[in-house]
């Protein structure tokens, strides 16, 4: 049994992440010989023209410049090998140039010229020996006076100071210069050291007087970027606030939930090749008929905080992405999704599932993320994926007496199951997948060595009490799709070796657990009926090979599904229908909803979920009338729901 606290896991992975980054930086530093060093960043503003000169210890191998918008920037990559330069932002006092930022990358120094205004001015960037010169021309943003500023200067740069191109000292009364500098005559100021002696190559300085403001006499000495600026540049924060309210269609006609969600996802770009993602959410539900037994949470190894039985805050995902050539590495708490099917999970079984709302909430919300490592290697049309999951969490069934408690499974008895040990190498889950894109077709081969997410209900024959525990299984599977005309055929399947099944002939007091091979697969067809309508039909089948006698459950189970998706009115109205039909018991789940987007950020969804059919079926269990020993709201669970969601981006 194990229950790893949130804080321990978080600290462990934060530490690992820091070590990763530290190791990466150290490696980059060790691998980069100190040959190209930044000596000086110099700005000259003259009329409508700005000249930014980057002075280096020697000539760069090459330069590469390109503009970006929103906000307006000019990026200059100076190709090395380079000596790492501390990330910094050097502010400029100018009507066009906000600041110059510099960052070190494995093979180059990147300079970002942050510009004011939305319009990108005409620019040229050229290399002149050990200097890189960028000239910007913005007639709409003239500077009122000729101004030269040293934005950065290294101690070694003093010997280079005299050679920086500056406004010319010739013809101080040139009328063209006054025209360039603006209507107001600029004040005459003394020439300063290193700021006005060399002849300029710009048109303005060829024509104009050498007027330099006092700011050039007090060069900014490596101003450090503020925390806010650093965060703003590297952080990407998105999320939503959402209310989900559901009303029971059958007696008692009451709310079954009124969940108020706040979710935020933070992406922090550490370097060009590393990014940290944090996804957290909290929920307050004053109705809360989806959870009733708060005591269960004390043993539940879920990384979340609970406040009473109506509030929770949860660290959903926390991972570090590292891109190294053709490798993608994701380390941390994450969701890993395999497979092709809609509505039911065949290969998508790596993460356990939260069943407190049965399968009515989105899988992205229902999957329980796991700590682990995922490595992808891409080679042309092939992708090779490896997984290592030292973390274990079980499926989370709905509480006893809650709205969606399983009616046909003694979940309460399974709660105390023995679990694999977290972080023990031999108890890890591992898997791999090979995917290939082909003409009209994609294929994948999958393998997973995993634990059953529901425990196996072993029975102690001496005490006649359940001693449930999780068991290992091998999953071998694959998936495919094939596109033709307006159709896509899809399929996925998985064969579980050594899956456990209960055989119970109770009149003969016979109860045992048997291991059998278990095949689960789906075949489906997407049909793009019309520009605004997509249809999908699927056939699911589960087969237990050589099924034991007196099997609890069906040896062959069949189901079909229909999914329709549409949109109207400038893609603002989105009707959707999902029908799942269990053939063995004739039970049915119908999910219909319509979403309307009031704006790109605000939407409302109304819908209904209907359960019908036999109590013995997967869906029909929630259509059955209440039993004496159940709580009164665990009867028929068909419902209406309303969801209002507001997204945000900071």
């Amino acid at each position: 049994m194990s229950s790893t606290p949130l804080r321990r896991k978080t600290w462990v992975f934060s530490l690992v992440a820091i070590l990763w980054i530290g190791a990466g930086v150290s490696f980059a530093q060790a691998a980069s010989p100190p040959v190209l060093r930044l000596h000086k960043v110099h700005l000259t503003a003259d009329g409508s023209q700005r000249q930014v000169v980057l002075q280096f210890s020697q000539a760069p191998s090459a330069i590469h410049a390109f503009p970006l918008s929103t906000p307006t920037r000019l990026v200059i990559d100076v190709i090395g090998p380079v000596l790492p330069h501390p990330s910094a932002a050097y502010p400029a006092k100018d009507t066009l140039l906000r600041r110059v930022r510099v960052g070190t990358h494995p093979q180059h120094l990147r300079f970002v010229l942050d510009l004011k205004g939305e319009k990108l001015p005409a620019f040229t960037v050229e290399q002149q020996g050990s200097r890189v010169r960028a000239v910007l021309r913005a007639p709409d943003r003239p500077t009122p006076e000729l101004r030269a500023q040293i934005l950065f200067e290294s101690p070694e740069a003093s010997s280079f100071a005299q050679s920086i191109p500056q406004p010319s000292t010739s013809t101080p009364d040139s009328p063209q210069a006054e025209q360039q500098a603006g209507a107001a005559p600029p004040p005459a100021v003394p020439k300063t050291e290193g700021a006005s002696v060399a002849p300029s190559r710009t048109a303005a300085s060829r024509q104009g007087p050498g007027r330099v403001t006092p700011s050039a006499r007090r060069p900014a000495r490596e101003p450090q970027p503020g925390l806010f600026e650093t965060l703003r540049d590297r952080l990407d924060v998105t999320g939503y606030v959402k209310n989900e309210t559901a009303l029971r269609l059958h007696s008692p006609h009451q709310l079954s939930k009124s969940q108020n969600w706040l979710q935020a996802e933070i992406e922090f770009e550490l370097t060009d090749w590393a990014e940290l993602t944090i996804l957290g959410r909290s929920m307050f539900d004053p109705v809360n008929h989806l959870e009733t037994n708060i005591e269960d949470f004390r043993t539940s190894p879920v990384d979340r905080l609970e406040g009473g039985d109506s509030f929770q805050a949860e660290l959903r995902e926390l991972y570090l992405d590292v891109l190294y050539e053709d490798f993608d590495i994701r380390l941390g708490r994450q969701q890993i999704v395999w497979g092709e099917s809609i509505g039911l999970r065949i290969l998508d079984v790596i993460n356990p599932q939260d069943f407190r709302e049965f399968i009515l909430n989105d899988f992205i919300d229902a999957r329980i993320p796991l700590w682990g490592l995922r490595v992808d290697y891409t080679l042309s049309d092939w992708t090779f994926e490896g997984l290592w999951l030292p973390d274990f969490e079980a499926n989370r069934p709905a509480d006893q007496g809650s709205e969606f408690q399983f009616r046909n499974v003694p979940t309460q008895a399974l709660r105390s199951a023995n679990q694999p040990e977290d972080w023990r190498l031999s108890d890890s889950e591992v898997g791999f997948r090979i995917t290939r894109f082909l003409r009209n077709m994609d294929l994948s081969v999958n393998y997973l060595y995993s634990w059953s997410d529901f425990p196996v209900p072993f029975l102690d024959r001496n005490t006649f009490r359940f001693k449930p525990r999780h068991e290992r299984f091998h999953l071998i599977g694959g998936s495919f799709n094939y596109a033709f005309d307006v159709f896509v055929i899809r399929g996925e399947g998985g064969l579980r070796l050594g899956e456990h099944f209960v055989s119970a002939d109770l009149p003969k007091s016979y109860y045992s657990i048997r291991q059998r091979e278990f095949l689960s697969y789906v075949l489906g067809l997407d049909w793009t009926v019309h520009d605004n309508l997509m249809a999908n039909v699927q056939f699911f089948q589960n087969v237990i090979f050589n099924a034991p006698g007196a099997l609890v459950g069906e040896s062959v189970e069949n189901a079909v599904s229909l999914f329709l998706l549409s949109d109207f009115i400038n893609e603002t109205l989105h009707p959707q229908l999902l029908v799942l039909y269990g053939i063995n018991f004739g039970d049915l789940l119908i999910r219909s909803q319509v979403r309307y987007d009031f704006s790109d950020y605000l939407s409302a969804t109304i819908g209904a979920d209907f359960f019908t059919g036999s109590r013995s079926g997967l869906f029909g269990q929630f259509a059955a009338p209440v039993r004496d020993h159940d709580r009164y709201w665990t009867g028929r669970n068909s419902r209406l729901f309303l969801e209002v969601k507001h997204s945000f981006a900071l």
Partner: protein
Amino acid sequence: MKTIGLWIGFGLLVLSAVSLADAQEIPGEPSGREIAVMVDEREDGDDQISEAVWTLTNSRGKTRKRHTLRYWKDYEGLDGLSSKSFIYFESPPDVKDTTFLNWSQEDAEADDDQWIYLPALRKVRRIASGDKENSFMGSDMIYDDMADREVEEDTHKLLRVEQDNGTKLYVLESTPVKENYIYSKKLRWINAETLTEPRIEFYDRKGRLLKILTTEWEEIDGIWNWKRIVVENQLTGHKTELDISNVRFNQGLKESIFTERSLRKGAP
């Protein structure tokens, strides 16, 4: 024998008349087909990166905006491919991190390979591309508008030459060879100097004016590229505006950008 000779003579006469018409609809100007070939062969770079803001406006004035980052690479028939493109959705938040990958086939009759990654599902899904009349991203452009159309798929006729503020424009009528094509014809205004197309009118199967596409062009690194596109549907009142910025040509884009990896990881 004499009859056969007459028929051959008549045939040659007809052929020469057709050739003459094809070669020179307006004296002193190139033929429609020659202009279409020149437009088709206009330099468009080996690859391209660009940003775009899509503004979709319906007849009631309600607008939706999409910010995208696009990577495009010319394959020039390699592996039977015409080009590959990858689009990353930057905003708004509900579509952020959605990606779209298209492998355009050299064979105009063949369906493109297309995939989409939906962050809400965390899945890469192949999508059908057989119906080229489907709207591209909810805009007034359809997939067929986005694909490379071969010159031979239409017959081209130079209708007239116009002057617009001193700019010489060819007005070309391109009529599809294949029957029951999406459009019965297109009228294309072509800048005689730059071979860019500032205006295209699309006519539906019934011959009605369906939509008008106007384009502002800019020259970047010697290559003419879209700067702003406006498509107005004349039947529905729906409008699509596409503002393109930060265009970079010939960046040496790697093959790995156009794979499943980028779909899942987002913009390279």
